[in-house]
């Protein structure tokens, strides 16, 4: 069996879906977590392929970029859809999430950059809320049509993991109200009640993002 090491900050962020995938598949891996702000990232940065984390190391071969890592693992472990067309749809959903997240990130940057309350309100109402509305509309449309309750086909895929984690983060930021979003809440529930995820979810470090 290959030796896997996943390196990322000590938050859920862009790597959590991959961590979940290892647990879902029951595959051991080194869950290397870098503490933000103690200088360890700066020391590590130049040795990574793209100067960024997460990085997945597979018997020493390094793969950067969170979605590339996630797709690689999902294909290996059988969570990338049952057909090429299903996989393309899982890819499309994750890309749509990334497009939304690009908008949402502007808010995080503004908050962390100490922008005025007015500026933050502007970004929230002019950028984030419209982006979220169309993103949720698309996801709900998919869940409306797909009777399995998963986003793609009849089983869990990496797309479900990404969206569940995003819903979790949006709720922590006050952008998701479970009672207003029954289908998305049900999806998160479906993911988080997978038996093989139970003990990891009970013990994992929490983070806002």
């Amino acid at each position, binding site marked *: 069996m290959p030796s896997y090491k996943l390196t990322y900050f000590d938050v859920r962020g862009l790597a959590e879906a991959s961590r979940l995938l290892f647990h879902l598949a029951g595959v051991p891996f080194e869950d290397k977590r870098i503490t933000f702000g103690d200088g360890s990232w700066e020391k590590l940065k130049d040795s990574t*392929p*793209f*100067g960024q984390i997460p990085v*997945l190391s*597979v018997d020493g*071969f390094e*793969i*950067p*970029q*969170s*979605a*590339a*890592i996630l*797709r*690689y693992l999902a*294909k*290996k472990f059988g969570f990338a859809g049952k057909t*090429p*067309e299903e*996989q*393309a*749809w899982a*890819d*499309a959903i994750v*890309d*749509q999430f*990334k497009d939304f997240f*690009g908008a949402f990130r502007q808010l995080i940057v503004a908050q962390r950059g100490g922008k005025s309350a007015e500026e933050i309100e502007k970004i929230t109402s002019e950028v984030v809320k419209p982006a979220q509305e*169309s993103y949720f509309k*698309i996801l709900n449309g998919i869940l409306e049509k797909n009777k399995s309750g998963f986003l793609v086909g009849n089983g869990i895929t990496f797309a479900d993991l990404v969206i569940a984690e995003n819903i979790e983060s949006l709720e922590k930021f006050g952008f998701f109200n479970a009672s207003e979003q029954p289908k998305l809440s049900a999806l998160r529930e479906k993911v988080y009640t997978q038996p093989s995820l139970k003990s990891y979810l009970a013990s994992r470090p929490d983070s806002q993002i």
Partner: protein
Amino acid sequence: MVHYKLTYFLSRGLADVSRQLFHLAGVEFEDERLNRDQFLERKESFPFKQVPVLTVDGLEIPQSMAIARYLATKFGFAGKTPEESALVDAFVDQFKDFYAEIHDYFYTMLGFTQLDGEEQKEKVLIPARDKFLPLLAKFLAKSKSGFLVDSGITFADLIIVDDMTTLINWWPQYADGYPEILAWRERVMNYPKLKEYIEKRPVTMA
């Protein structure tokens, strides 16, 4: 035989990579190009209210890179091992990050913002370029094939070079400080079957 239809605007944008893949593979497809009015008429009917959309025997697939990856995987332009394919995906994601970073410059040059193109070039394009191109150059230097990954040309080469065509159209000196990048661009654009397509395709700024 599978029936393919690719629906997009008249331009190259994020969809020409997929047109290129059909031509490289010698596979026929319906190259549906919509003007702005036609797009607006049909917008609500598309799965993600956007183009490109690939229709495969009636099944619609949205999102430009999902489409490109699907075709590249089918036709053999997505790397030869799972690890290589992951690296190809990583280059494409890094390109999308670059593309997001230069958004204000790109959309200004398309005429969609009130910002100043020269100002955005200095503020946004050049810093992003100076992070992205050296990264590509690092991998090209070690590559056995002269393309981003060892086994040969992939859709990562195609999308990055095609976007560069747009950036060079707007600013001819864009990559002048990066001769190895320009040499790679030549190699991609001279690739058999791709060269013929490039010579015949509609000429568009973007």
